[in-house]
């Protein structure tokens, strides 16, 4: 059979962000694939060096459009460690609340994209509609749906009153019922299962080989979660389960992500129940003493790592950002081999690509 090369991207209905895939197929079977990144490379690591630490908080927010808060959290965490700054408890709690809400928002967004790409528009519409609840909460707290601009070095900019806590708890209940509905549908809907089961398989060995992180790794039975393994912020005081699944296919990833959403709503409730009083931020000096820091945190897609070096000025000498999408992209080569052309869309959406993150 003759080989045909199908271009997927940089612009393709399947991709929400620019990424170029050249997939060689024989009939309906994929035999080879080539990838090209960099269509949204903005040189953020270089831009950081030209801006002050305060300005960089907002630059880091723009590394990713979906998990913007976790990037500022990791960055601020690193700079605070360099400064030796004690962040007020209330600030840490609110920061973590936003992190968990963002996880729900990111996972539901992903489910919508997956469903859309496999021709299940209803789930796409519903997932995004319920995601709106998470966005509404974040909007009411921070004034922004995606760019929250909540983190500042030394704490958070926002505060909540009792009425807001009450309202958010109500919205979380609503979110819970809807996530349960979605879980029911994906667990029982036959067409969803036949499209996602045994598609995009990754064995635990492959996950380790390619250093894959986050829900993709957890769906392949690799039990890693920085929130539990290296508790930052206040995660050591919270009680939650790390969800893993043994199947390693796209369906397992869906289940893992939705169950993580449920865990996140529980975490939000715990945070709101034990929200301490006090200030939300402390004043940070503008100049950061010379030193280096490695800051990690668990983004919705997995481990985010920041390396920051200061040379004692008000601008960082080097900021290195590694986002969780990059190793997931590397693992795509193996997942795409020998799949059906129709499954390319499911495989590509299954790992939750965030190209803007990967390109920076």
């Amino acid at each position: 059979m003759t080989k045909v090369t199908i271009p997927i991207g940089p612009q393709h209905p399947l991709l929400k962000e620019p990424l170029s895939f050249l997939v060689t197929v024989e009939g309906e079977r994929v035999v080879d694939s080539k990838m090209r990144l960099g269509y949204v490379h903005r040189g953020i690591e270089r831009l950081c060096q030209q801006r002050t630490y305060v300005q960089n908080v907002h630059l880091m927010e723009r590394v990713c459009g979906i998990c913007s808060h976790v990037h500022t959290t990791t960055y601020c965490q690193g700079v605070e460690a360099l400064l030796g700054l004690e962040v007020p408890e209330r600030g840490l709690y609110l920061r973590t609340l936003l992190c968990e809400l963002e996880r729900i928002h990111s996972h539901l967004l992903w489910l919508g994209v997956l469903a859309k790409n496999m021709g299940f528009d209803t789930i796409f519409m519903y997932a995004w509609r319920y995601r709106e609840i998470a966005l509404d909460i974040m909007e009411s707290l921070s004034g922004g749906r995606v760019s929250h601009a909540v983190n500042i070095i030394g704490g958070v900019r926002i505060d909540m009153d009792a009425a807001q806590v009450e309202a958010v708890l109500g919205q979380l209940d609503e979110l819970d019922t809807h996530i349960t509905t979605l879980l029911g549908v994906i667990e029982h809907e036959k067409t969803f299962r036949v499209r996602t089961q045994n598609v995009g398989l990754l064995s635990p060995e492959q996950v380790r080989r390619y250093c894959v992180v986050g829900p993709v790794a957890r769906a392949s039975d690799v039990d890693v979660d920085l929130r539990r393994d290296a508790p930052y912020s206040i995660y050591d005081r919270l009680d939650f389960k790390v969800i893993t699944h043994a199947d390693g296919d796209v369906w397992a990833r869906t289940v893992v992500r939705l169950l993580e959403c449920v865990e996140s709503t529980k975490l939000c409730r715990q945070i709101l129940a034990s929200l301490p009083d006090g200030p939300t931020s402390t004043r940070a000096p503008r100049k950061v003493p010379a030193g280096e820091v490695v800051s990690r945190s668990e983004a919705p897609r997995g481990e985010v790592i920041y390396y920051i070096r200061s040379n004692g000025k008000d601008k960082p000498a080097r900021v290195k950002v590694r986002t969780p999408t990059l190793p997931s992209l590397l693992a795509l080569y193996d997942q795409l081999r020998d799949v059906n052309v129709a499954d390319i869309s499911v495989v590509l959406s299954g790992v939750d690509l965030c190209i803007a993150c990967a390109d920076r």
Partner: protein
Amino acid sequence: MARSRPLFYLLPELWHSLVSQPCTVGYPFEPAVLPAGFRGRVVVDPDKCKGCGLCVRDCPAFALELQRESRDKYKLIYYPDRCAYCGQCEISCHADAISLQNDFVHAIPERDTLKVVLVDHDKGRACDVDGEE
């Protein structure tokens, strides 16, 4: 979880969607609902502004500019096209003079008109955001 038919999971949702209002926001035809802390139009209270320049120094998008002639005579200029609406100026301001309002900034066809004098402390009054001085 009990093994039940998939239709029973989706059907209640379908019915609910069918009988309830669509969740589409009809924005241009009806007013948009903005949250309380929405970061929109940048406004400065000229009486409170001391011209310290902290907002200018911290603005990540270089959207603010301070033109100073003397201690009491300065202009705070704002470029809405550069602004990222992050709210850093509001955090940085020690005098609570600058704030982001719960308001949209209107679209403007020409980029050159996007230069707003927020504070002109020679005259001591704030100008409107729409670009006319």
